[in-house]
């Protein structure tokens, strides 16, 4: 009897340890993934000075809800039968908060991956931590170049949109090739955003042409106005103005140069601030004649631009917004951006396969090649080929503002390959 007891005890112990593991399966080892769900997380400025970007995670939520409800190409709802659960927290653009909320997502909520985190400085504050813990920090919502260029050093972190330096380099090369006698004045925001743009512009212009830049002025995004800077730039005799500023300050710039009666022959404005919804405000305040002729780039379609109204991608966007976030202003480009990013995330999840792990996701992200995104410009391909090409979206079109709308003045410009 005692001998049997011993064996029974061993058997019981084996069952006690083995059974939960067997039942749990792979899900027990990959945080945030179960047979029926994928938990994604992100931090965004829902309050505070940068809260105008708050629609981004809401656009992503609307898109994920759509994916969760519709039947995919494999006949299943969600991604391969798994529903996407999207958890995002407010960091008020304060790195102290970003660190707390990110730790919360990783250690308490146990998300599978961080996606779309917003802000250069906030995301930089958690980059070391996430890479050390091997948690994907995907498709950060910022064009800061170093997120892509540091991919080798931080393999779990990657950007999404065309980075600021490559965009500004396009402007630099345009001036170099088409306006060799231009006298350029640069106004840039004193933070990573503006500095990145300026660096890219100067690089694109080339060291041989660096004397084209006759004046440069900076400002803090917290300053009330940019009048003194613009007066100085005007006095330099420049005929070309580069505006590297976030939307509110860009609008201020247009309003101010109208009051100064200064109409530079060419104005280049950064793409983030060139969204139709902001430019419309600039036109109202400064007059169409001030804004007309401005040059920028874009890589997505614009919900406030009527020329896209009949586009199937735009229709899909409006349907999704109407069904899942009807109270949102669907002309706000931030919702649209969120949805476009959501598409890429879903593609990456599909590519990562049924056996979903963080490694398989990173592998999918590093080799993504998606041309199906209905929210990006036609023919824009979301392509990554690490370690050579770490910038998922590298194509954009030059556009010019005329008669109330942006029209393309070039084909797609590809700044690939980027290391």
């Amino acid at each position, binding site marked *: 009897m005692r001998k049997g007891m011993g064996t029974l005890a061993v058997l019981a112990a084996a069952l006690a340890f083995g059974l939960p593991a067997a039942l749990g399966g792979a899900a027990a080892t990959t945080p945030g993934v179960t047979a029926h769900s994928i938990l994604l997380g992100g931090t965004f400025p829902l*309050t505070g*000075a940068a*809260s*105008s970007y*708050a629609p981004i995670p809401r656009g992503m939520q609307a898109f994920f809800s759509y994916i969760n409800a519709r039947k995919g190409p494999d006949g299943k709802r969600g991604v391969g039968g798994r529903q996407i659960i999207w958890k995002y927290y407010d960091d008020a653009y304060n790195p102290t908060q970003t660190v707390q909320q990110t730790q919360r997502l990783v250690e308490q909520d146990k998300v599978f991956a961080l996606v779309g985190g917003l802000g250069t400085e906030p995301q930089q504050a958690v980059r070391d931590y996430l890479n050390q813990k091997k948690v994907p920090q995907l498709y950060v919502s910022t064009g800061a170049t170093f997120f892509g260029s540091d991919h080798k050093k931080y393999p779990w972190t990657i950007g999404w949109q065309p980075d600021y330096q490559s965009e500004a380099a396009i402007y630099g090369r345009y001036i170099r090739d088409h306006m060799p006698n231009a006298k350029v004045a640069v106004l840039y925001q*004193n933070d990573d955003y503006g500095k990145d743009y300026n660096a890219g512009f100067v690089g694109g212009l080339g060291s041989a042409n660096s004397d084209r830049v006759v004046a440069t*002025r*900076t*400002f*803090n995004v*917290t*300053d*009330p*106005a940019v*009048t*003194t*800077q613009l*007066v*100085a730039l*005007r*006095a330099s005799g420049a005929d070309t103005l580069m505006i590297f500023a976030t*939307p*509110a300050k860009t*609008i*201020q710039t247009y*309003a*101010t140069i*109208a*009051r*100064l*009666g*200064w109409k530079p022959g060419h104005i280049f404005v950064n793409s983030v601030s060139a969204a139709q*919804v*902001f430019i*419309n*405000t600039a036109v*109202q*305040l400064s*007059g169409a004649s001030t804004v007309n002729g401005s040059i920028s780039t874009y890589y997505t379609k614009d919900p406030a631009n009527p020329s896209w109204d009949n586009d199937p991608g735009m229709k899909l966007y409006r349907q999704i917004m109407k069904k899942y976030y009807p109270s949102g*202003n669907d002309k*706000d480009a931030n919702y649209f951006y969120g949805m476009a990013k959501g598409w890429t995330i879903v593609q990456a999840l599909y590519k990562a396969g049924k056996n979903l792990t963080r490694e398989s996701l990173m592998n999918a992200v590093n080799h993504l090649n998606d041309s199906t995104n209905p929210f990006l410009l036609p023919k824009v391909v979301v392509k990554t080929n690490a370690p050579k090409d770490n910038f998922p979206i590298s194509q954009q079109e030059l556009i010019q503002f005329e008669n109330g709308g942006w029209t393309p003045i070039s084909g797609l410009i590809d700044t690939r390959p980027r290391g």
Partner: protein
Amino acid sequence: MAQFWQQIVGGLAAGGIYSTLALALVLIHRATGIVNFAQGEMGMFSTFIAWSLIENHGMEYWLGFALVLLISFAGGAGIYGAVIRPLQRGGELAIVIATIALLILLNGLAGWIWTPEVKAFESPFPHSLITIGDVVISWQDVGTIIVSFACVLVVFLFFRLTRTGRPMRASALRPRTSRLMGIRVTLMLAVGWGLAAALSAVAGMMAAPVLALEPNFMLPVLVYAFAAAVLGGIDGPVGAVIGSYILGVGISLLSTYVNYITVAPELQLPVALAILLVILLFRPSGLFGRTVVRRV
């Protein structure tokens, strides 16, 4: 040389924007001895109401303007009665916290009601420009400056001549005596807050066409308005306005000609504040303030 004059014009235009808000701050300080940290946000909130009436619902500008002044007056008086007066027993600190709470509240409320998206609020003045040699002056800036002087005049006359103005000065200086004399102190002070709120609304509506309307647009203006009010002497309306213009022009010229700042214009504000601090050390009541005998 042309840049010199243009910077002066720009500085005067900036001064025009700060001055009306500085005037509101001075009015409240003179009437109730309080510094209202929420003054800028009250102006911002009023400007959003104006946007809603004029831009969103198509009301004619000056009608909307007048309506917003009335609404702001009522709001300011209401805030005084409901929030400030009951808390005045609590002392200086309680009031500072209360006005900060209002700042947070109004900022959040505006963002919630109207979203943080930047909006266009147009100026009522013509878009045309006056050109004198190389210097360009816009009618919008001229209009702002004229309005700012009109506001000073209104406040000045109000205090000097009207039947409500003089009792208000008395109420602020000697509340108990005033009460004994039959002056309804609370009413006077509420009127003061209402007037200040209306002035803040004017400041916001003049600033929005060039600064662009969004919930945070008045916060930097508030800092400069404080500096201007303190510079000019926080108890004198005329001083505050002159202080605003001096500050506006001063900063413009500093950032053009002092290399330290030209290279890093982001240092405009700290330099201006440092200079202000130095001035305060020598003249604690501001450039035009009357020296009050302080007990220790």
